[in-house]
């Protein structure tokens, strides 16, 4: 059992996401992370799914995904060189004075951006792989994380290879 990163190219149509996610829950798999958005092909979307399972189970899920009419291509990126990114928005307590200065310093170190400043809080935006965001969040906790929003993970193969349609 290990996390698998699947990239699923689908028709950009109503109901596609529930067809895809429904299949995971029906077959007893939990989705760890999910990200959906339009992609380079008009009329298509790309879904990145992180899901924990053994190789045989994931292979079965991929075959079942392939059977969905609106699914154009399914790829397992797990054993490939790839880049992965997530984005998080973090609203953190940062009272004017020392704590605000410290938070801003941490943000610089992590290359996070300050995207909103209020009297007692600021909002930071950070992108990176899961570990980096986890580490950043952990460090901010001592100042008081009021709210945290994370996107799902997105992933892409390194190099010139691309994941195109055509089953």
């Amino acid at each position, binding site marked *: 059992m290990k996390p698998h990163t699947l990239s699923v190219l689908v028709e950009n149509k109503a109901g596609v996401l529930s067809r895809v996610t*429904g299949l995971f829950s029906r077959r007893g798999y939990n989705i760890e992370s999910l990200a959906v958005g339009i992609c380079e092909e008009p009329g298509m979307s790309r879904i990145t799914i992180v899901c924990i399972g053994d190789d*045989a189970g994931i*292979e*079965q899920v991929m*075959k079942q995904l*392939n059977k969905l*009419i609106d699914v154009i291509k399914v790829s397992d990126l797990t054993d490939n060189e790839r880049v992965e990114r997530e984005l998080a928005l973090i609203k953190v307590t940062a009272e004017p004075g020392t704590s605000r200065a410290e938070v801003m310093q941490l943000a610089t170190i992590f290359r996070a951006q300050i995207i909103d400043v209020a009297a007692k809080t600021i909002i930071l935006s950070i992108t990176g792989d899961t570990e980096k965001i986890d580490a950043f969040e952990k460090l901010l906790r001592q100042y008081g994380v009021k709210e945290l929003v994370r996107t799902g993970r997105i992933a892409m193969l390194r190099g010139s290879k691309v994941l195109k349609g055509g089953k």
Partner: protein
Amino acid sequence: MKTGAKILVEGLQREGVETIFGYPGGVVLPIYDELYDSSLRHILVRHEQAAAHAADGFARASGRVGVCLATSGPGACNLVTGIATAYMDSVPIVAITGQVPTSLLGNDAFQESDITGITLPITKHNYLVKRTEDLGRVLQEAFYIAGTGRKGPVLVDIPKDVSMRSIEYDYAASEPVTLRGYQPTLRGHAKQIDKALEMIIEAEQPVIYAGGGIIASDASEELVRLAETLVIPVTTTLMGLGAIPCDHPLNLGMLGMHGTRSANYAVTESDLLIAIGARFDDRVTGKLDSFASHARIIHIDIDPAEIGKNKKVDVPIVGDVRSVLQDMLAKLQKKKSYDRWLARIRGWKEKHPLQYVSDNCLRPQYVVEELSSLLNGEGIIVSEVGQNQMWTAQYFCFRKPRTWITSGGLGTMGYGFPAAIGAHFACPDQTVFDIAGDGSFQMNIQELSTVASNNIPVKVAILNNRFLGMVRQWQELFHNRRYSFTELPPVDFVKVANAYGVDGIKVESCEEVVPALKAAIETDGPFVLDFRVEREENVFPMVPAGAAINEMIGGKQE
């Protein structure tokens, strides 16, 4: 200008549909208005479940796509069991449902239910049509998807305003369907086929395990030719019965839970299992680790997801089984003699024939055997679910594909009678029998009204044991005979039939069986036979749940 309803009805006719099974309601009024003076034949059922099963029975008997129609909400929900039944057995049907107007969608409007959501896991695909402009194309896609690749049900949900609006549309001028996410593999991979043929030559004890895929792809001829050319024995699943004639010397009969001993022994001892259009269902394999555990496995199937799902496969071949078998036959060069293996199998067949006590009691197996010899391979046999189904599978001699229609994957009680109605419209010249249980028949007994009012000559032979027999059998064998809620009160089915205007005969002794069956066959219209059979007869042999398939109980000469 055409309304959506007209586009629908014309579209169905363009797809070659002649008969649909349905039930009206509020949001399908525009569609029913269009049907009023259409040449498309509509059969009014008495429950929407029956419409779905009838469409399914039509599809299985004809090999074409069956169609059913229901209103929104309760009507659509009543189709669900029928759609799930078709899905589990890969049967091509298109289910059309009405929906509340688009302006009310998601509003919990009167008779609104999210039928595309509900049927998501039990359809091959489904559509909610939001614009009249899309209707024609969706319908084309629905038929294409249902009837190609691994076949299955497709649902098309049509809001009332979509069927009422008028647009310019010409079905004939539409483009052929192309779906970039749906391109089933039909031809088998040549290298894989070569590997399979090599493996067959290397084998000493091969068995062909043939499933419903043979029937679905009309590959019976190819199957029999392959078996005969190579002289390899064949066992079929419940769904594969009829793929090879029951009395063919190479046929071992059905395998699995209520299969023959010879089939189960042969699979267990085999060193090569050639699975064709079958899916290693748990009712077939029993304890998976012991199933064909000495065998290498070749698996031919149209659905890549079935390959390696339950059992590791040595040579997977994805493709339409008919096309793959044709390629195999064309490439066959070497042959080998499996004489010693065939002799062993012959020994098992002689030693362990299917058998039941033949005495003066009215045994259900006797009824099936007599019907089988009267029809002599002709006619279409549909069954309900339970003991009646297993006895029919065991004792009826099927000689041709598409003459045996049963709910295998879902095991839906109440399937048989409406499916028999559908089968009649597919093959109006054939005698159609529903071999029923008293429990199952009562799940769609209202269809007596449908057969009476349309004079549909379907015969129902009820093996009336006044029990939910199959469940009672398990209670007898595994729950200390504690018959918890499985006894049914006596029902006079002839009186019920008469009340609907259908003739019938009650049969209480062996001597009456043949004359009664003859009377039913000779009657032009529908007929009900109420056979008061031995109440606690069991289906044997049997593989207990969780056991290996060669660990069978019962049905043996002691």
